[in-house]
Structure formats: structure tokens, C-alpha cells
């Protein structure tokens, strides 16, 4: 199986990606004393989450990622189970809805096929830092709607990115690496007792949620978007 081996096209399409950063990500729980301020280089990020329509096109071009063909080690039983068929959305799914029920492996393969990658946690959190805490909490408190909203339903934040909060949760490349019982230091000693902002509940929710995932998991409100490195002139590399 070619995990991201085929290239569909160049990642940078001016209207669909946004330049984010450079900036500094300050983890709520610094994993070590050397990681209180994590510099983040400027990068390109999809303005919107990947949609069901986007992902359907990918699956048609990469049939090894159809739900009836994907090796179970790469995606659990729920993978794309909301679609009518392995290669069709059906009437209940709007192609402009954010795709959900995708595993980390599948999300990574999608981005790889575009010549892109998943954003790191530091990059994602930097991009998300342009949204107010009250706005985020009001989303976390809302029950899931029967139908997910179409992408682009929330306002752009100060980076010009939309839907980082308010539509679906999103995979990041290193989703499970920020809480590790380390070689020589434990999570507790290094981090938990020294949380930078103890009332930053939204960030705690995200870190705890990500940390509870496994790469083959799929859920009804976990999607993704892609990122890419950027060079000094602002072009995708």
C-alpha cells in the first residue's frame, strides 16, 4: 500500500491555503523545561477542513483506502461508515461537510498524496490561537448536531483560518507525543504541576482528547486538514 506515494498535485493553491506564523507555541503542559516556548516556523495550512467530497476523490484515486479494502491495522471498523458505499457518499452526506470517521493513517495518506502532511500539534495550536476561549467553550458545550455543518461555517480567525473550532476535532501529526512517560522524566514531574495557565480548559480538553486516541481510531466528529512547509519566499516546498 502506498502511504502517500502518489502525488495528486502541488499543495499550494492560493485560495485554499493560508500562511500561518511564524510564532511561538507555549504548551499548556510543557513536556520538559526546554519546551516551554516552542518556536514554530511559518507554514501553509488548509483554510478549511477536508470535506467528504475531497476525501471521496482521494479514495477513488487510491482504492486501497476504500473502507472495504483498507487493512484493519490502518483504520478501525468505523472508517467511512457514514458513507452509502465504499465509493459513494449517498444522499445523507453533503460533499461540503467535513470528512469524519477517518483514521490518522488515512488522514496522513490523504495529505501525503497532495504532497503535504498533517500539521504538528505546535503548528495546529499556533493556528488555533487566533480564536477566543469563550467561542471555543461554547462549541465544546454544544451537543453534536444531527448533521455536521458545511465547512466554512465559522468566521476566519486572525490567521485567516476557519473552522479550527466549532465544526470537528482534527488530527495532528504528533497527536500522542505530548504526554509521555519519558526516559528520565515523568509527565507529572515535568509538566502537570506546572501548567502555565491552569484555567485553560479548552486546551486541556484538546490535549487530553488527542492523548486518548490511537492512530487507527475513527470517530464521528474527528476530521483533519493538511499543512506544508514554506520557504523564505512564501512558496510551498
Amino acid at each position: 500500500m502506498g502511504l502517500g506515494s502518489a502525488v495528486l498535485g502541488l499543495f499550494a493553491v492560493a485560495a485554499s491555503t493560508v500562511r500561518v506564523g511564524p510564532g511561538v507555541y507555549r504548551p499548556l503542559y510543557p513536556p520538559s523545561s526546554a519546551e516551554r516556548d516552542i518556536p514554530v516556523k511559518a507554514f501553509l495550512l488548509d483554510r478549511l477542513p477536508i470535506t467528504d467530497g475531497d476525501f471521496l476523490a482521494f479514495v477513488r484515486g487510491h482504492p486501497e483506502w476504500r473502507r472495504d479494502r483498507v487493512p484493519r491495522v490502518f483504520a478501525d471498523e468505523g472508517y467511512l461508515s457514514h458513507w452509502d458505499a465504499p465509493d459513494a457518499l449517498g444522499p445523507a452526506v453533503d460533499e461540503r461537510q467535513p470528512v469524519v470517521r477517518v483514521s490518522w493513517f488515512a488522514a496522513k495518506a490523504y495529505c501525503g498524496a497532495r504532497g503535504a502532511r498533517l500539521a504538528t500539534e505546535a503548528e495546529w495550536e499556533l493556528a488555533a490561537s487566533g480564536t477566543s476561549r469563550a467561542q471555543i467553550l461554547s462549541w465544546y458545550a454544544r451537543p453534536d448536531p444531527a448533521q455536521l455543518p458545511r465547512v466554512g461555517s465559522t468566521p476566519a480567525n486572525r490567521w485567516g483560518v476557519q473552522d479550527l473550532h466549532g465544526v470537528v476535532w482534527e488530527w495532528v501529526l504528533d497527536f500522542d507525543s505530548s504526554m509521555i512517560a519519558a526516559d528520565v522524566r515523568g509527565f507529572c514531574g515535568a509538566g502537570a504541576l506546572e501548567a502555565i495557565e491552569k484555567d485553560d480548559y479548552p486546551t486541556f480538553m484538546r490535549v487530553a482528547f488527542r492523548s486518548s486516541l490511537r492512530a487507527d481510531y475513527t470517530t464521528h466528529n474527528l476530521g483533519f486538514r493538511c499543512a506544508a512547509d514554506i520557504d523564505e519566499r512564501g512558496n510551498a516546498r
Partner: protein
Amino acid sequence: MRPLFGTTVLVTALALLSSCRSGSDQGAPSPMAGSPIAATSSPRDDRSIYALPMMLTDQDGAKVGLDVFRGKPVFIGMFYGRCPSACPLLVSTIKATLAELAPPAAAEVRVLLVSFDPEHDTPEALHSIVQQRGLDARWKLANAPEDQVRDLAEILGIRYRRLPDGSFSHTSSIVLLDRSGAIDTRLDDVSQSVQPLAARARAIAAGE
């Protein structure tokens, strides 16, 4: 609170809290630890981790796939050569497990250790570890491109992070693969008994 995440967030939060109470020198238990991972192959044989396309380079500079030991019971783990304590312990624990085996299992089982650190764990560096630790022909130490290292870690349920000083935070697990490459048994705490791993390796070697 969103219904799905209510439970997972709470469980994680409780795990963190309980580990904090037990002392700061003890790391939080991995949420992975003890979680059931299917031990049997499905009809489509899709529990095999050999579905992962990887290009490994071993201690002799040979390019091999992840399935280099397909057909054998394999102890697989991840490490890095400059690791001060956990990785030497990982090697010692696998040695102790091998020492529990008698022929024919002892002759059939293989060990594959893949580095988190392709930058430093060149074939030469890996070769010197093989010599220093007296590892026999059943062992293969290998590196892989960084992107593939993360795929392998995820599929094995091993967590790691590169630190700014170039060292790695990581969990240490020994994972036993059956002949097809499906995960059979795992040891997530290398201070625990190796007997279950050894028993399963014997059973796989005996064709059970």
C-alpha cells in the same frame, strides 16, 4: 460536554491525576498499556503490521522491508543508540526473554529493533551496538526515514517525541509478532516478567 469525549477525557484526566499522586518520579501510565489489541488475524489477514511500507537499513547497510522476518515469531521494539537508560534496559529484557527459550523456539525467533533517531543511528553506529552488546545473528537493528518511524511507532503503540537537545522521550514496549506479522502479545513495562512473552513465542514457534 460532548458525549463521545466525555469518557475519554475523564479517563485520561484521572490517569494523570492518579499518576501524580504516586510520585513525580513515576511517569503517567500509557493509555495504551493493557488495552486489548486483537491477537488473531481476520480473514483478510489485515492485522498484519507488514502492510506498512517501510524501507529499513540494517546494521550491515542492507535495505530490507518491515517484513524481513515474515514467517518467524518476532520481538520488535524501538530504541535509539544514544539513549542513556531505557534502551539498554530494553535490549537486556529481550536478551532475558530469549534466554527463556529452548530449541526449536530459540532458533526460530528473531529480534527487530528500529531506531527513533535515523540521523545518528547509521549502519555503523548500529553495528557497534550489536558488537558492544554481543547480539547474535537473530538480531537486526535498523533505521528508517523519519516519517516512516512515526508510522511504525503508531502501529506498535509506542509514543515518542524528539526533544530540543536531540534526545527522545519515548515509551518502551516489546511487541511479539506472529508469523504473519500480527501483534500477538506485548510487554509495555519492561520491569515486568518476561514469562508471558516467552510462553507465546514458544507457542508460535510450535505452530499453535
